[in-house]
């Protein structure tokens, strides 16, 4: 590239300074995103130590590429993808599988298609935005007990609330595969939570 080319290019000062956000510092990345990344990794991997390892991996990756991001918005959407990939890679590295077999919840029906067990009402849950600690712990534990392929999708869909097509893209699955696994994950979660929430009728 020679001098003439440089002169033809729009000088950076032509854009108003306020439209270019200042680059994030490493400390800002740690504080702003550390919690989110940690929580997602923790739910996928089920262990504090594993979650810390993955969080370190991810945040240092981000810090190495800080000049690539124009402000927090573009970084946020990328973070889900790299956190999930880092967690999956961590599992592969550790080479332990938690793909324990569970009975397909759709098998819990009689020959004639009726429910295989009585279905009880749940008592009214308080409607406040923040869950009671006990309830939260219950749900977290139930999530950890899901087989991994169901757990990942359940966490991304119902905890992180990503749309199914995005989950499909991140995990390399079809949308229908995502939906099928998500549905089964929800049925398993429902079954796991039911004993705790069912109304005790006299």
């Amino acid at each position, binding site marked *: 590239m020679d001098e003439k080319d440089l002169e033809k290019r729009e000088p950076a000062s032509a854009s108003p300074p306020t439209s270019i956000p200042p680059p994030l510092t490493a400390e800002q990345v740690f504080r702003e995103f550390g919690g989110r990344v940690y929580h997602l990794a923790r739910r996928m991997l089920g262990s504090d130590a594993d979650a810390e390892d993955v969080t*370190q991996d991810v945040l*240092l990756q981000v*810090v190495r590429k800080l000049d690539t991001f124009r402000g927090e918005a573009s970084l946020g959407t990328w973070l889900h993808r790299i956190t999930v990939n880092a967690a999956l890679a961590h599992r592969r590295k550790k080479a332990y599988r938690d793909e324990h077999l569970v009975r397909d919840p759709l098998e819990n029906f009689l020959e004639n298609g009726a*429910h295989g067990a009585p279905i009880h009402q749940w008592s009214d849950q308080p409607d406040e935005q*923040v*869950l009671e600690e006990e309830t939260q712990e219950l749900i977290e534990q139930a999530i950890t007990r899901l087989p991994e392929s169901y757990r990942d999708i359940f966490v991304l869909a119902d905890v992180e609330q990503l749309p199914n097509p995005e989950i499909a893209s991140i995990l390399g699955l079809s949308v229908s595969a995502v939906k099928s696994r998500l549905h089964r994950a929800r049925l398993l*979660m*429902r079954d796991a939570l039911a004993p705790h929430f069912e109304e005790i009728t006299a």
Partner: protein
Amino acid sequence: MTCRELVELLIDFVGDELPAERRRIVEEHLGCCAPCHVYVQTYRATIKLTRRLPRTAPPPPQLLERLRAALKVMPAPKPPPPGGCFA
């Protein structure tokens, strides 16, 4: 429609993705099947409760320390080549 068939469709039913005719059949079944009626309520409740889980919280303090320490020993990023990245 059997109870099992209804449960198989539930994700689309609660997600409003069932074609109108299927939806009608599901609602008809729910109108006269108490177990399914409750089942659907508890399926919805499961989703609702899960959505209230916090997605973030302050990271464990030792993690921040660990990150800062790791940052100190990280190799410095390579400076851009002379003339800029498009040379």
